[in-house]
């Protein structure tokens, strides 16, 4: 990074530290924070969409759809989320390869599952073994995203299902009285009103999601935990920057990162709750109305 870093063994003190903290692996470590944020940015809306579909399906009048929705919603109750994480990463991988195998190699007659092996034809492998390393990493990351979205979608479905039931019945009855169809009432009345009831649950879910991101490490993604372990471990003099076991400092750094992140989220979500509650027929909305000075709303 800096010019004086060409010979690390000759450095000491602050200069050594500045070189150490800007060497190649550290830059990859810093960029892995981006990986975590990217995961959150993609997963949160995706999980919300999954949750919405799950909650809507649970209310469906079509029985099989309702059962599917209920099963999906009930999935995360009673079973630790990490079981799903470990399960889906392998299961999805095998499912994708199996489907490609069926499509690409119709003539293949050897069994796919032989003892401890899962053999699909070479064309069906994901990613292809000849693919560059970056594709393997991208594939792992997208598997992780889909896994997170499925699991947190189930959590979100729980929250949204409760929120849909919390919308006052009279609202839906009024919609029916105005001659709206079931579908219209759902879209125009239920969905716009449910968010304020869903917000406490969704805020809580966002916090859980943030705190679940270190599990990326278990899913085989080179995330911040991976790099903290990798860089923090003791380095012998064979390395340019030898040091004893410093993992405790790296993990402390991660701890502080998460503490700041959750604190900021808490503040932002509290403001969002206040804003959404304004004008709503809820206790918080009433409190805001009373607290506001008289006169036309700004």
């Amino acid at each position: 990074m800096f010019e004086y870093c060409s010979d690390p063994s000759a450095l000491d003190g602050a200069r050594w530290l500045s070189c150490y903290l800007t060497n190649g692996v550290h830059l990859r470590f810093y960029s892995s924070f981006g990986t975590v944020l990217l995961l959150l940015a993609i997963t949160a809306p995706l999980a919300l969409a999954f949750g919405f579909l799950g909650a809507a399906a649970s209310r469906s009048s079509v029985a099989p759809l309702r059962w599917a929705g209920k099963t999906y919603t009930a999935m995360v109750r009673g079973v630790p989320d990490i079981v799903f994480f470990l399960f889906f990463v392998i299961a999805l991988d095998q499912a994708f390869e199996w489907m490609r195998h069926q499509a690409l190699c119709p003539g293949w007659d050897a069994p796919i599952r032989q003892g401890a092996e899962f053999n699909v034809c070479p064309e069906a492998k994901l990613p292809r073994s000849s693919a560059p390393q970056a594709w393997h990493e991208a594939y792992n990351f997208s598997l992780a995203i889909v896994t997170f979205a499925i699991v947190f979608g189930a959590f979100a479905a729980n929250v949204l299902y409760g929120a849909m039931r919390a919308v006052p019945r009279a609202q839906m009855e009024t919609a029916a009285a105005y001659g709206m169809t079931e579908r219209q009432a759902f879209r125009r009345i239920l969905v716009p009103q449910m968010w304020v009831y869903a917000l406490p649950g969704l805020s809580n879910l966002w916090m859980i999601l943030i705190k679940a991101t270190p599990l990326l490490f278990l899913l085989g993604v080179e995330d911040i935990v991976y790099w903290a372990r990798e860089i923090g471990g003791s380095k012998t003099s064979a390395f340019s920057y030898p040091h004893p076991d410093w993992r405790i400092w790296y993990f402390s750094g991660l701890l502080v990162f998460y503490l700041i992140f959750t604190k900021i989220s808490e503040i932002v979500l509290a403001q969002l709750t206040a804003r959404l509650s304004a004008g709503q027929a809820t206790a918080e909305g009433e409190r805001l109305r009373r607290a506001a000075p008289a006169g036309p709303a700004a």
Partner: protein
Amino acid sequence: MMCAEELGAYGLRSLGIGERLLPRSDITLCDQVVLIGSGMIWNVYFGVLALAAGFFLATLLALGKAATSAWIRKPADWFVFLFRGSPLFIQFFLAYEAFVRLPDSIGVGLFGAEGADLGWLTRAYAGALVVLFFNTSAYAGEIFYGALRSVPKGDLEAADAYGLTGFTRFRRIVWPTMLRLAWPAYTNEAIFLFHATTLVFFSGFPAWRQQGDALYYASYFADKTFNPFIPYPIVALYFIVLTLIVISLFSAAGRRLNRHLPSSERPRRPRAIGQLIR
């Protein structure tokens, strides 16, 4: 009898009793069910002990957060913030690294020149238990604190009118009401804690002599057979049963806490997970 042979060989394998080597080839369904079930011993161990000890620390933390003196309130606030604001996964890693260093740094200072042997803290049965204990105390402390602030004013006035003060007032009026109000959320926390015990052997703490929890063995089987569709559903079923047991125990306790109320004012039985609060 079904699986009798496997039960003898692996039934207590997670405690180090029975067959030394884990099954490697020709893994049967019985092997998986028995060994994963054996691992559940650890999940129950961590969950029960952390919950039982955490209950008392949580009460103290709730009182601490409600204290008027900043010297008591601030440490309680910070403790709760530290453990609720960061991932349990990171807490495990950090605690393990800290415990590994403990004997040669702090141990010497605290226990004389030669230092006490604190190596047992690096083992999961003690080290991870400490982390889970602190973690659940922080979450439950926040729940109890919320309940403490919602204790009806009338109850406190009645206590004053009867001349109850100090600890008697707390033990007979404040504490039971606080627990009653907190109970649904606390049930939730207990369920989450049992689920969190599966993280122990996937974080910093290594499984000593392959003595691990249910998920440790399940992922062992998934690695060996490369088939996730059998071991993970087995863990899931075990946990559903465990969750149902936790719920029934907690709702029995909840009924007892609410037994003086007319039935119309009693809270409904908690659903499998009523609200997902963690």
